[in-house]
């Protein structure tokens, strides 16, 4: 798999823009900015961490710009961004 920056989603209301910067080592660095940070910041982090664990991604910078997305959308955008970054295979690979 070719490894590159992967980005998915948008800054529309109820969406989230997620950018994945793969790195060879150095662990995970998750940066979250959300319009509902106070209410849901922790929950967003949990979804991101769980999805990364499920897909066995251990080294990447994940930048999250959230516009009030539900969990399902956060997970979908992250999976797409990871796919585009070459860190997980396409849609069929659950």
């Amino acid at each position, binding site marked *: 798999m070719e490894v590159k920056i992967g980005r998915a989603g948008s800054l529309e209301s109820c969406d989230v823009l997620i950018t994945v910067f793969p790195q060879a080592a150095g662990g995970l660095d998750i940066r979250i900015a959300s319009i*509902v940070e*106070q*209410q849901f910041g922790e929950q967003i982090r949990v979804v991101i961490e769980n999805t990364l664990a499920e897909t066995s991604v251990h080294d990447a910078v994940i930048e999250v710009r959230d516009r*009030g997305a539900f*969990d399902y959308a956060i997970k979908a955008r992250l999976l797409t961004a990871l796919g585009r970054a070459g860190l997980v295979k396409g849609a069929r690979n659950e």
Partner: protein
Amino acid sequence: MKRILPSYIEHLGEVTPFTYAWDMTPPTHLAPRYCSFSKPGNNKLLPNLREAIRQSDLRDGGTVSFHHHLRNGDYVMNMVMQEIAALGLKDIRVAASSIFPIHAPLVDLIRSGVITAIDTNYMVGPVAEAVAHGLLHKPAVMRSHGGRPRAIETGVLKIDVAFIAAPTADVGGNINGVHGPSACGSLGYAVADSQYAKTVIAITDNLIPFPIAPISIPGTNVDYVVVVSKLGDPKGIISGTTRITKDPLGLMLAETATKIVQGAGLLKEGLSLQTGAGGASLAVAAFMRQEMIKRKIQGSFALGGVTGYFVQMLKEGLFQRILDIQCFDLDAVESLRDNPNHIEGCASFYANPLNKGAAVNYLDVMILGATEIDTNFNVNVTTGSDGMIMGGSGGHNDTAAGSKLSIVVTTATRGRLPIVVDEVTTITTPGETVDVLVTELGVAVNPRRKELEPALRNLGIKVRDINDISAEVYRRTGKPKPFSPGKRIVAVVEYRNGQIIDVIREQGR
């Protein structure tokens, strides 16, 4: 209601907690009004604001008042408060019927101790944020549009100097809001101030020969007149034509609300109606209009903040009168000026619970918004779920209490934020005055109005328990982390009857 309020609040004194909506303890007399007189040849016209403030004998610790008809285009409050600061006065209470983002310069005056207290019915923007962050020395008092004139008329809120932005005035101090470059229409929120303040100063950018017509506030209440170059920015004063929402969900909710009016048996000759000015509330007016035309119904009156849409309905003969407390657009201003059935009313006439019968008591249907509504039907329109102050009752709790049928129309979630919640962050309007909730997840009827349910079901409306709606909301959004406020009380929410219904605590920085 399980709100635990302190029994005593520093700077405010003993707390009278909210009991129920119509718990009134009227004093036997209204507050005394100040007496002063003017002889022939006396000149009310003063050269500038500073001179007027000097003449008013405003002292440290005094209270000054403002109306909000110029809304987010208002230059007057900033102008006056800068002069007050320049005169070295401090510890001033600002009693403004509303405060908008344009009033950001007041934040510096709060920091420097010129302003130490605020009474208002609605605030949004930097001043509201400063209050929420605990910058103001004393807790702000947040009232309703009807509660404010009650407080003034009964002497709870004592005003030393009322500064009244006057789009048109004459040397006798007669003023109106319908003419001039800063025309804003109704001046309803300034009337009690003009009657009960110790000194009344009219500030105008359109001084025309005595006597003006019409006269909204008579010069017999006004001590001084000051001319300034500009009262405000017309773009901020009148927001242009408010458009009906195009959001399909909003339209669906509006259609459902209209059916509920029908189900409650109120869609009939003589109907009276008030809606907010937001796109979703206006959509209800649009559906009501269709139904009224279809059924050949003429309503008696539309009330409150007026938009062009209601003006059109008045012209079409769908309402006999508009009772106008505030104009939201140019159409409303022009109609108030030109149409004798479009009547200007003051805030006390509109909503004061402690006079001999305010207009809200004659209102059939009120369409309300909500920032949050809880499973006891309590509504919050004062703070966000993060505790930030971003509104206030305005006429919300007045109209809910007065109307025969109050309907809250809102989506169940806004973005990810739950709107139908277990418990509102701040109570603005008590659930006992809210009859029906309309959301996309279903309609909930307040158990106090159970009798409405069969009629609504017959119309094919999906009626659900509000607890089920709230549970479904949380399933969709997840449970938000509750706001954990600081200890310090930064504002109190005073219900329209004068009882404290909630407090707002400091938001951390």
